[in-house]
């Protein structure tokens, strides 16, 4: 049987994920009436929060922390690459 994260860690992770989602929503300034492009720091915060959320989901919800460092690195690397694509596309559009 695989060592599971335990209820306390699951609840702490869930609280973190919820808080980061709310932080992303606030930093993205959801007021539709004053719609404008995000400042770069705000967009950076959204991307960083997203990356951390995915990392926690992989390590705790999916319990990847029990796998070898190579697998952990592979999945985290893929997430970083995906976020780089998202952030790069966003930046290229913003700065063009």
């Amino acid at each position, binding site marked *: 049987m695989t060592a599971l994260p335990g209820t306390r860690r*699951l609840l702490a992770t869930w609280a973190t994920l919820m808080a980061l989602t709310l932080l992303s929503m606030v930093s993205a300034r959801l007021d539709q009436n004053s*719609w404008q492009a*995000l400042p770069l720091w705000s967009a950076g915060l959204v991307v960083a929060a997203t990356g951390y959320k*995915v990392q926690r989901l992989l390590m705790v919800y999916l319990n*990847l922390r029990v796998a070898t460092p190579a697998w952990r690195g592979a999945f985290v690397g893929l997430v970083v690459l995906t976020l780089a*694509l998202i952030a790069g596309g966003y930046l290229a559009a913003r700065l063009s």
Partner: protein
Amino acid sequence: MTTPYASLRRVPNPGWGPLSTLPGNPLMWVLILSEMLVFSAFFALYAAERVTATALFDVSQRQLDPLMGGLNTLVLLTSGLCVALAVEAVNHAQIRRARQWLGASMALGVLFGVIKGVEYAGKFAAGITPETNAFFGFYYGLTAFHFAHVLFGLALLALVSWRTSTENVETAAAFWHMVDLIWILLYPLLYLLR
């Protein structure tokens, strides 16, 4: 000195070669990896299109309601917690408790679908379809593809609620978390980064 038997006991899936150290069903990890690659390819396409039609994407993105997307993120994250708690329960031989968590997770999955349905209905009522422009092609394409995964995940969760075993619940849970993971990436891409 570690005996071969002891070293075999340390890995979750002995006999699966490089996949043996992954928790749960190794084939589910192959699926998770391939799904992440597929969605990443779509994200790259979206990014490339956005660079060539920035103004169109900005105007179109304004039509989306980030609060609805955020609400759906919170719903899916909570559903993921319920599935993880179901895995904990089934590992402690608490089958009834595991089924209750699976039921809660499915209810939240259905709520996700209802919110998404309300969002789609609003868009269609406003005359916004996948053919409206490139942005909405991506919006509908990506969210509908993801939603198809939600429906399949719900079917899997229902199946393992009926055939409840540790392996079955872990396998369905891994798929459900993958659905969650993809949405976490989709949400900022479509709704927040403007």
